[in-house]
């Protein structure tokens, strides 16, 4: 059983800390121009962070205790393929989900 005091320290601390991280640049830099080298790096924030965040989740999913899972791998491949091809986010999600459930059913 989680200690209630610990739990609330983590909830409140994580809430405040996360807000400060999100506020760091928006709040403090504000309207000032960022140096060119910095904005050049920031242009690649999303394409670097998001793939790095999910790559381990795709290869070693927690739901299969870190074992490589053909259903999840093919769902990922289909999602990327449809995304690159159609540039349609919703359609890619739908195709990925259909592949995931289809494969889970077939392999299940």
């Amino acid at each position, binding site marked *: *059983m*989680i200690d209630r005091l*610990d*739990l609330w*320290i*983590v*909830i409140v601390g*994580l*809430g405040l*800390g*996360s*807000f400060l*991280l*999100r*506020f*760091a*640049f*928006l*709040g403090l*830099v*504000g*309207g000032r121009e*960022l140096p060119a080298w910095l904005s*050049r*790096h*920031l*242009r*690649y*924030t*999303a*394409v*670097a*962070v*998001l*793939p*790095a965040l*999910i*790559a*381990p*989740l795709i290869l*070693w999913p*927690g*739901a299969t205790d870190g074992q490589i899972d053909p259903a*999840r791998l093919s*769902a*990922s491949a289909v*999602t*990327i393929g449809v*995304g*690159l091809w159609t*540039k349609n*986010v*919703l359609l*890619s*999600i739908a195709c*990925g*989900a259909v592949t*995931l459930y289809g494969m*889970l059913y077939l392999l*299940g």
Partner: protein
Amino acid sequence: MPTSTIKSRYLQGVRDGAPFLFVIGPFGLLFGVVATEAGLNVLEALAFSVMVIAGASQFTALQLLVEDAPTFVALASALAVNLRMAMYSASMTPYLGKLPLWKRAIAAYFLVDQTYAVSLMKFERDPEMTPAGRFAYFIGAVTPLCPLWYLFTAIGAILGNAVPDALALDFAVPITFLAIVAPMLRSLPHVAAAVVAIVLALVFAWLPYNLGLFVAAIAGMMTGAQVELMTQTKAAQAKAEAET
């Protein structure tokens, strides 16, 4: 700026944000279920989602609390998972930095993976938007997503173990992020940044406190910036040669 334009920006945001309901819903539900399994009541699970509003770090904190890690370690690890939010904040600054402080504070609170990704895509594609128009769009994208994050956390916490594992809710996040990122890979620097970030994220996955993500993200961003510089120089050289 006429209110009609602001309103249409807001509605555009709602429309572009809405598809991500399919992620927020399952992910929120999953957090509620996991929180219940960890012994949290509905109020505690909901407080987590309202205060923190960042799924991955909430899961990290909860996991470590369940494993009886020291409070400080649970807090620090979960915050490390959210370090990327500081990068999102920096990346949004050129677009939202000119807004009044209270609006920037509101945007900061609601700056999550999906609202960030949706807005960035729009702001890059549409450089003519005013700061007020961008804020309206951002709040539009927040509207169908963040309240639903709270709601689905509560539903998950109430349903608890009644939600079957077979739904594979864990994979809602990877699928959506892939779908968001794929259309962003529109130039060589973008692809290079993503490839380097993926490889390093896998290589450094063993690092504690999710620091592997941080290493991978920074290296990916540096790669993107460098490749951009190189392709620009090459293009400039080709142009100079063509003119002589």
